[in-house]
């Protein structure tokens, strides 16, 4: 469910205030920021890393980096939550390379919708983006072909490599690479036109 624009603005303002307070070294503000954002960030990390212990480590590291770099956060870097999600995702991707993906991809994923995010997941989060932005991306995603759509989602949501996407879609790596490129180009064109 989408938050109303006013509630979303309010939340973004509050998270921005907390980040500013963190930049001034206020630990209580950081603790509140952690309490408000960690369940969503942890979900992102668990989804990519597939292992709770790794996700816990990534969450600590990423949030410590948020604390250290809170002073560099500006509105141009996106909404506070977007900025924090990105820090977490990049940390998780670094860890995946470090772990050399010794974790089996099939582990702990029986309850996950293969193609990205299920409707059930879509309605449970209280943190969200505006309805218009949400619809724009989904509309534009519908214009991609199946392969393009799945490739982009598997890469973003699950942190899959080209090779892993190839294995999961039963397609050659070269095909996956061109799906991603065409998908990105088409998405950008479509989103800028709306």
């Amino acid at each position, binding site marked *: 469910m989408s938050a109303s624009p006013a509630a979303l603005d309010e939340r973004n303002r509050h998270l921005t205030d907390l980040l500013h307070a963190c930049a001034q070294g206020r630990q209580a503000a950081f603790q509140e920021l*952690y309490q408000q954002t960690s369940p969503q960030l942890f979900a992102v990390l668990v989804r990519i890393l597939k292992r709770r212990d790794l996700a816990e480590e990534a969450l600590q590291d990423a949030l410590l980096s948020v604390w250290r770099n809170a002073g560099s956060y500006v509105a141009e870097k996106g909404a506070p939550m977007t900025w924090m999600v990105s820090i977490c995702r990049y940390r998780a991707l670094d860890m995946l390379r470090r772990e050399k993906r010794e974790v089996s991809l099939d582990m702990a994923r029986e309850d996950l919708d293969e193609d990205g995010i299920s409707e059930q997941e879509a309605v449970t989060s209280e943190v969200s983006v505006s309805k218009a932005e949400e619809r724009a991306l989904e509309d534009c995603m519908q214009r991609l072909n199946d392969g393009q759509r799945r490739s982009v989602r598997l890469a973003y949501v699950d942190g899959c490599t080209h090779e892993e996407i190839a294995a999961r879609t039963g397609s050659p790596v070269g095909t996956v690479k061109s799906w991603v490129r065409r998908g990105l180009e088409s998405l950008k064109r479509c989103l800028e036109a709306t």
Partner: protein
Amino acid sequence: MNYSDPRLQNLLAGEYVLGLLRGPARRRFERLAMGSRTLSAEVTAWEGRFAQWALRLKPIEPPGYVEWRLMGRVRAESRPRGERLRNTFWRSWAVAATVVLAVIIVTEKSTPPAQQKAAEFALMADAKGNPLWLISVHPEANRVDMKAVTPNPVPAGKSYELWMIPDGGKPVPMGLMNETGQASETISADLVKRLAGAKALAISLEPQGGSPTGQPTGPVLWVAPLVNT
């Protein structure tokens, strides 16, 4: 590759955000993006476009100890230079531990020989190292003693609650702290056993009467390592 081509820039930024640029290509792109407003704006734009997928995942509550460890690392980093210890949460407590040892020696000397000896101690101290409480665990008596070294008034409508931080797992409530003098809490034999493997004790600020949820709900004010004797 001609990195000034806008079409290529957009594509690379998109692949970077998806996590599909790996190894040297990823590092090269990061260097380029740091020096280019256009490129970093492309990255931010893609991050913003896709973030809604991350925000629509069903939230998962991380275990309580992640917060405790993280706050410990933040506190350790916030100390003045010179005193600062890096690396792990636990290492950062080395300074506090030396203070605890000094206190234990004094305490043991002044304790009447007939009194049962405590097996574990923790000293709660403020950010400047001033002692607030000395907490001792008496395993045979299933008892925890809390001695307020100085008066520690609680804000109106609030209580200080003591928690055990196990080595893995959630904090376990151990009772409310006294503001002055000496107080004792009776604890279960099971808790005594778990205390032997615990890393630390912590005190949080809770609504009067203690946390309504069984887990800390307010800010964690003090943390101290548990020292076995």
